[in-house]
C-alpha cells in the first residue's frame, strides 16, 4: 500500500488530510469498537492542525470514513452555524475534494456532532460521529487507568452507582445533566459524550451506527445499530430525561417553530426574560418549512 495514493496534482495533502496508514489504523479501531460494543479501543490519535479538545477525535473518525460522494453534516450543540461546526466543515471541504456538505439531517450520510444527536431519527445508511472529551465514565471514581481497565473488564460499576445513590440522598434525584453513564449491550458502561439526557434513550436500538472519538484521550468506541443502550439507574428510581414544563405544568414550545417535542435551549434576554428555542437548528428549520407549507395550501 502506498502511503499517499490519493494525492491529487497540486494538492500537498492526501485526500482526507490523514495518510492512508493512519486511516487504516482508525478503521481497524472502528471495526474492533463495533465488534465489542462500548469497549474503548485505544488508537494512535494523530496530530491535527487544530488543538486537541476541538473535536480532533471526531474529525479523525470522519476523515477516515469519508469517501467520494459522501454528504457530510457537522453540528456543534445542535447548530450547523456555530464557529466550531463551520470551521470543521470548511476543513473537511478543503481536504476532501469531491464530497458534499449539507445542513440537512435527512440528506447527510455522515454526521459529525458535538453534544447533540439530531432530533430526526437517523437511518441505517447514516453514521453519527460524536466528539468526546472524556471517554471513560469511571474517571470520576478511579484515577488509575490500569484499575479502570480491570473494572471495565469485570463490569464493576458499583462505584458509579454509589454516585447516583449519593445524588438521590442529597437532591432527591439524579443530577447528572449530560455525559450520563450508559450501559451498552449489557456490559460496558460508556460516557456517551456530553449529550443531554434527552439524547441518551435515542442511542438505544438506533438504526444508525454511532461512533465516539476522543482525540486527546486516544480512544474510539461505538454503539452499533440495534444495540441495547441503558442509562444506569436504580430499579425504583428510573432514568428520566429533561422535562420542559413551565410552572403551570405545560410543555414549553420552541419560540421560533412552536415544536413541543424537541430539546430546547434557554435564552435569557436583557430584561431577564427567558425564551426557549429548538437546540437542533435543522429540525427547527424543517418544522418552520412544514408549517409554511401547510399554511400555503388552500383550505
Amino acid at each position: 500500500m502506498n502511503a499517499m495514493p490519493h494525492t491529487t496534482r497540486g494538492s500537498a495533502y492526501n485526500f482526507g488530510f490523514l495518510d492512508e496508514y493512519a486511516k487504516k489504523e482508525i478503521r481497524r479501531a472502528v471495526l474492533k469498537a463495533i465488534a465489542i460494543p462500548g469497549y474503548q479501543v485505544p488508537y494512535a490519535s494523530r496530530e491535527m492542525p487544530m488543538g486537541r479538545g476541538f473535536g480532533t477525535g471526531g474529525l479523525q473518525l470522519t476523515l477516515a470514513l469519508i469517501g467520494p460522494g459522501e454528504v457530510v453534516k457537522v453540528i456543534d450543540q445542535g447548530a450547523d452555524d456555530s464557529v466550531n461546526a463551520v470551521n470543521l466543515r470548511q476543513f473537511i471541504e478543503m481536504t476532501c475534494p469531491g464530497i458534499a456538505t449539507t445542513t440537512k439531517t435527512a440528506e447527510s450520510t455522515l454526521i459529525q456532532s458535538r453534544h447533540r444527536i439530531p432530533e430526526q431519527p437517523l437511518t441505517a445508511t447514516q453514521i453519527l460521529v460524536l466528539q468526546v472529551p472524556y471517554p471513560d465514565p469511571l474517571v470520576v471514581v478511579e484515577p488509575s487507568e490500569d484499575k479502570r481497565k480491570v473494572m471495565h473488564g469485570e463490569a464493576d460499576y458499583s462505584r458509579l452507582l454509589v454516585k447516583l445513590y449519593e445524588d438521590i440522598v442529597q437532591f432527591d434525584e439524579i443530577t447528572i445533566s449530560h455525559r450520563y453513564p450508559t450501559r451498552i449491550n449489557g456490559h460496558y458502561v460508556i460516557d456517551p459524550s456530553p449529550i443531554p439526557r434527552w439524547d441518551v434513550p435515542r442511542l438505544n436500538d438506533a438504526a444508525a451506527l454511532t461512533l465516539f472519538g476522543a482525540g486527546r484521550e486516544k480512544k474510539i468506541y461505538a454503539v452499533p445499530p440495534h444495540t441495547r443502550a441503558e442509562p444506569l439507574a436504580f430499579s425504583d428510581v428510573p432514568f428520566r430525561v429533561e422535562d420542559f414544563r413551565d410552572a403551570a405544568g405545560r410543555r414549553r414550545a420552541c419560540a421560533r417553530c412552536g415544536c413541543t417535542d424537541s430539546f430546547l435551549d434557554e435564552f435569557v434576554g436583557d430584561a431577564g426574560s427567558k425564551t426557549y428555542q429548538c437546540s437542533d437548528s435543522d429540525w427547527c428549520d424543517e418544522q418552520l418549512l412544514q408549517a409554511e407549507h401547510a399554511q400555503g395550501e388552500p383550505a
Partner: protein
Amino acid sequence: MNRILEVRGLSRIYGPGCPHCVDATGPEADTNRCPHCGSIVAIHDVSFDLFEGEILGVMGESGSGKSTVVKTLYFDQAPTGGEAVFFDGDTQHELFALNAARQRWLRNHRFGMVYQNPNLGLNFNISAGGNIAERLLMSDLMDYGAIRERAKTLLARTEVLLSRVDDLPKHFSGGMQQRVQIAKALATQPPLLFLDEVTTGLDLSVQARILDLILEIQQELKTAMVVVTHDLGVIRLLTGRAIVMKYGRVIETGLTDQILEDPRHAYTQRLVASAL
C-alpha cells in the same frame, strides 16, 4: 462442626526471593529479611482451619506477618505460595486458583473485612450510607429504597446514630468510623469476616463497646471470624482458638486459654508475661 476455611502452606515473599530465603529467616534466624537476597519473608508455611461460627485469633508483634495472612485471604495481595479452600455451603472455592472476577465476587458477596485504618475500608468522600450502599450495589442489589433501608438497619445495629447516615465518615470519631466499617462489612451477611486490628488506637471504653458489638454479631449471625491483633486482651475476650506468629512463621497454635495460661514457646511466654 463444619469447616469454613482451610489454609495450607500460605507464603508471601516480598522481593526477588532466592533458594536460601526460607532457611535463612524465621524465629531461629531472628529476622524475616533474607541476608542473601534482601527479600522479606512476610509469611511462610502458614496453615490453619476455621470452623463455622468460630473466632480465630492471630497474634504476634508488628512485622510478624499477621496482617499479611488476612490480606492474602481477602485478595488484597496475592500469595507467593500455598493454598486456601473456602467452604460455602455445598460449594468449595479454591481461593487462589479463581480468576479475578470470581475473587472479586467472593470478596463482595461472601467475605467482609474491617481494617485497622478506616481509610482503607471506607471511602471518606461519600456518606456513611453511601459506603454501605457501595457494598450492596457490588452484590447486585439495585433497588434504591431497599438499599437505603438496609443501610439504616445496619447502622442502627452497629449503634451509629441514624441522623448521621448521610454524613461523611471523615467527620466521625475513630470509634464511629470503625462501627461504619463493621456495618459495611456485614452488609451482605458474609459467613466469613476478617478483622485486622479493629480496636487498635481507640480509647478503652470505645474498645470495649466495639468488642461487645463483635461478640454480639458473632452470636447472632454465627459469622466465622479471623481476628488479627497484638492485644492479648482482645484475644482473650474474643477468640476460642489462636495462633501465635513471629517473623512470618506460626510458632504456636491451640486453644486461647491454653496459650495464655500455659505458653509453650519461649516467645509466647515472654509475650504473655510482658502483657499480663
